[in-house]
């Protein structure tokens, strides 16, 4: 098949170019999906930090799935796939940890727990805030010799 035949094929089958907006919309959807995944991953990571004991395994598994999905989405970008995966993965984890710690600093989950919203009520009941046990030791007087 030569070049003319391919052009004839395009004309005969009335093959149309996908319009530019199709690709713009696709990019917007990918960005939106990336933002949603990042927010959920951030929520889950800060929640894990909030309720460390007992360790919330189910949110942790979901967090891993969301991080992998985020990495997969970011691989669409030239700046990401041209570098080894470990770099982008470490940056994602670092940013999530940083922002997750900030959320905990501002008592985000305590406020959410107090609000008792229908969607999150069961979630906070199942994994309550971590209890930091106070050290139990006696202060003994040291006799001076």
């Amino acid at each position, binding site marked *: 098949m030569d070049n003319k035949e*391919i*052009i004839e094929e*395009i004309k005969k089958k009335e*093959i149309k170019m996908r319009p530019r907006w199709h*690709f713009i919309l696709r990019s917007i959807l990918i960005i939106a999906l990336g933002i949603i995944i990042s927010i959920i991953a951030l929520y889950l990571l800060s929640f894990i930090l909030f309720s460390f004991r007992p360790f919330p395994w189910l949110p942790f598994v979901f967090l891993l799935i969301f991080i992998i999905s985020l990495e997969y989405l970011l691989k669409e970008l030239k700046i990401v796939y041209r570098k080894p995966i*470990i770099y982008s993965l470490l940056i994602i984890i670092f940013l999530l940890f940083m922002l997750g710690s900030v959320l905990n600093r501002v008592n985000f989950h305590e406020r959410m727990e107090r609000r008792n919203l229908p969607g999150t009520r069961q979630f906070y009941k199942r994994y309550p805030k971590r209890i930091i046990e106070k050290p139990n030791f006696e202060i003994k007087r040291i006799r001076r010799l």
Partner: protein
Amino acid sequence: MRMGLSDKKDEDIAKLVQSGEIEPFAVLVNRYDEKIKRYGRKFLSGKEDIEDITQKVFINAYKNIQSFDVKRKFSPWLYRIAHNEFINELKRKKREPFKFFDLDVVFPHLLAYKEKYGQATDRSIINKNLDKLSNKYKEIIILRYFEELSYKEISDVLEIPISTVGIRLKRGINKLREIYG
């Protein structure tokens, strides 16, 4: 066909196609038809398969031409489409399952492979023994030594890190040397 179209760069022709002109696309087909077929021949043996898939590559390129950024090079973009089409065909025929995930792309490789074509490798030796290599080495060698793409361009075609291109090229050539003796 307008005068001087054949003197224009691929990217300028792609821009014309983007504006709605179909005829300039024939110039791009003319320039890349043999190259894409040659690329396909390294994966598939059936002549009809290669003809059909090459046609599919150009039709897909035409359909998706609006996604091409004219500030970038056209050839890696087209090879990316060709790569996807040939890999899909290979998967369909189940000759060799392609790995979804490879440790090669996870960690950085300090060793960059800078050997130039012809320095220590001969195209005919490569060509004879290419089929003995797995696809992940074979494809990189084809793109580098037969299609003469740069590391960055190969990285864009395969969507893998530039350092992985270097390390796979080095391993592939070493394997060829072992085979050749």
